[in-house]
């Protein structure tokens, strides 16, 4: 049967490849991607085929029945996340193969960590019960911390340590919430919780713990302090993976849990509060990004800002009527997917610019436009999506959110969308202003390999393309969700 054989492979395969590459000699570690990437791509596409042909599917691992067995669910959202993960991770892996050549051999631990990261992420996208989500979070989180520490310089180690402490605190809060929910209802599955949960104090405390833990892992303002050093200080392909995908995983869990429990169980102000924190993230992150002097720190703070938009989902979907809720769902997912593509492109092209001038300082980019127009073009193209200019994915996402806000009468979120876009424009143009200025500082630049430029360009172009063809992914993402009926 189409779709089902590939479902367990999606995390068995990266797990096996991770162990294999750990055992391999460093020189062979990168080469495993030539076996792994085609297989992962085939399995992901098979999932898509399964979704298109036979709709959402449930897979019982080892034919054990829940609660002792593990159910995996592949609905539209899960398949969408799997596809974007395969695309972005695959391209980052190809990028890293070239990028890491000039780095010390110890960085070849990137490869086993990459496969473990992929295992954790796919485990999260497919999980149907809240405990497997915890396990997925941990597998992914520990691999991500290892990747941040790869550079092994004191700042990178401090960033990794800070990231690890934040991640551990977040997971424990989440785990305690899971413990309370299981104690109260005796079930871990999302569907079971949706049926059983009532709006009592236990559920509310449990949900509060889960939400706070996940906010810490998603780095929503004001819990974002660990993100800029970790994302900005890591090796370039690692930064791209972390910003594009890893922070989305905890948001994805929050989204799933909110749809199951949120509106029925939480007090009315919760959704609004999440929206306000999101708005705070957009303003604070944008402002801080504009003030940075290091290129990758600027991009990292831009992630802090862009996370904020995703959280507008909660006030727009709660008690607003089906049409506004559907628009909010579409808009949020569009923001999520286009940010994954655009931020990966932005980090990779920023990495290319840094390779070219040999310095992470924005002020050293003076005159680079004459030497590296391609890198700069990818940077700008990704920037277009982050600013939300048409016809990019970022524009479509904001447009849908805007409609949802108008339809539900919450016009004040429009201010966030507009000012956030202006702030993004300010920090993107800050980089451009430097690049086009003529100055005495450099008259030469190192030419990074063409592959690196092409990969960044491909990702940036996808961020634009997803906006042009938005209705296709959005249609399939609704399959199996409450917003399915159009």
């Amino acid at each position: 049967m189409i779709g089902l054989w590939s479902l367990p492979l999606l995390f068995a395969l990266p797990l096996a490849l991770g162990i294999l590459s750990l055992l391999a000699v460093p020189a062979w570690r990168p080469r495993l991607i030539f076996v792994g990437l085609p297989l992962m791509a085939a399995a992901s596409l098979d999932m898509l085929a399964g979704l298109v042909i036979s709709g959402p599917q449930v897979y019982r691992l080892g034919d054990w029945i829940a609660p002792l067995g593990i159910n995996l669910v592949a609905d539209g959202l899960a398949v969408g996340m799997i596809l974007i993960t395969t695309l972005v991770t695959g391209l980052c892996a190809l990028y890293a193969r070239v990028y890491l050549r000039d780095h010390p051999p110890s960085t070849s631990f990137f490869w086993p960590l990459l496969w473990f990261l992929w295992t954790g992420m796919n485990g999260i996208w497919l999980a149907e019960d809240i405990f497997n989500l915890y396990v997925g979070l941990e597998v992914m989180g520990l691999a991500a911390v290892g990747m941040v520490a790869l550079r092994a310089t004191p700042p990178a180690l401090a960033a990794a340590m800070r990231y690890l402490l934040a991640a551990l605190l977040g997971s424990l809060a989440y785990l305690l919430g899971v413990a309370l929910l299981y104690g109260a209802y005796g079930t871990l599955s999302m569907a079971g919780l949706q049926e059983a949960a009532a709006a009592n104090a236990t559920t509310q405390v449990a949900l509060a713990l889960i939400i706070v833990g996940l906010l810490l892992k998603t780095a929503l303002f004001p819990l974002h302090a660990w993100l800029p050093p970790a994302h900005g200080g890591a090796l370039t392909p690692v930064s791209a993976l972390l910003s594009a995908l890893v922070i989305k995983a905890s948001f994805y869990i929050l989204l799933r849990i909110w749809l199951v429990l949120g509106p029925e169980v939480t007090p009315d102000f919760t959704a609004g509060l999440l929206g306000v924190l999101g708005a705070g993230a957009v303003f604070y992150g944008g402002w801080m990004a504009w003030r940075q002097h290091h290129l990758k720190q600027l991009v990292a703070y831009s992630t802090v800002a862009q996370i904020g938009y995703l959280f507008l989902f909660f006030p727009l979907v709660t008690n607003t009527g089906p049409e506004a809720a559907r628009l909010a769902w579409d808009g949020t997912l569009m923001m999520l997917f286009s940010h994954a593509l655009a931020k990966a492109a932005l980090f990779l092209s920023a990495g290319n610019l840094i390779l070219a001038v040999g310095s992470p300082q924005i002020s050293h980019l003076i005159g680079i436009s004459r030497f590296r127009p391609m890198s700069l073009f990818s940077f700008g193209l990704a920037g277009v999506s982050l600013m939300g200019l048409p016809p990019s994915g970022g524009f479509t996402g904001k447009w849908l959110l805007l409609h949802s806000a108008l339809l539900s009468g919450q016009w004040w979120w429009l201010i966030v969308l507009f000012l956030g876009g202006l702030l993004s424009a300010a920090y993107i143009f800050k980089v451009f202003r430097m690049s086009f200025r003529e100055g005495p500082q450099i008259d030469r630049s190192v030419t990074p390999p063409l592959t690196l430029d092409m990969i960044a360009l491909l990702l940036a172009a996808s961020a634009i393309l997803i906006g042009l063809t938005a209705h296709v992914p959005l249609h399939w993402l609704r399959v199996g969700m409450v917003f399915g009926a159009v």
Partner: protein
Amino acid sequence: MSGALSGYLVFAWSGVLLFGLGLFGFVAHRHIVRRLLAFNIMGSGAFLVLVGLAQDGRGVDPVPHAMVITGIVVAVASTALALVVFRRWYRASGRTDLPEDT
């Protein structure tokens, strides 16, 4: 909920207490090893809540035990990774705490 403290919930409440103590230690201390110890106490608290709440006379429930075993594996792995990063950090910087945010 009367008699909740004297009955089967005593383990769950101890778990909550441990979690709170651990959280306090995690926030109050700056030495990384102390914070890791505090993290482990928090973890034990969460595990105790998991098994403690399941003892409500519904008979033996294997699911929390399976979860706690998984949780212990995760906690050991996290602690090991944290200690490795800490050792590298200590060797590189000579500090036992993290620098303040700039």
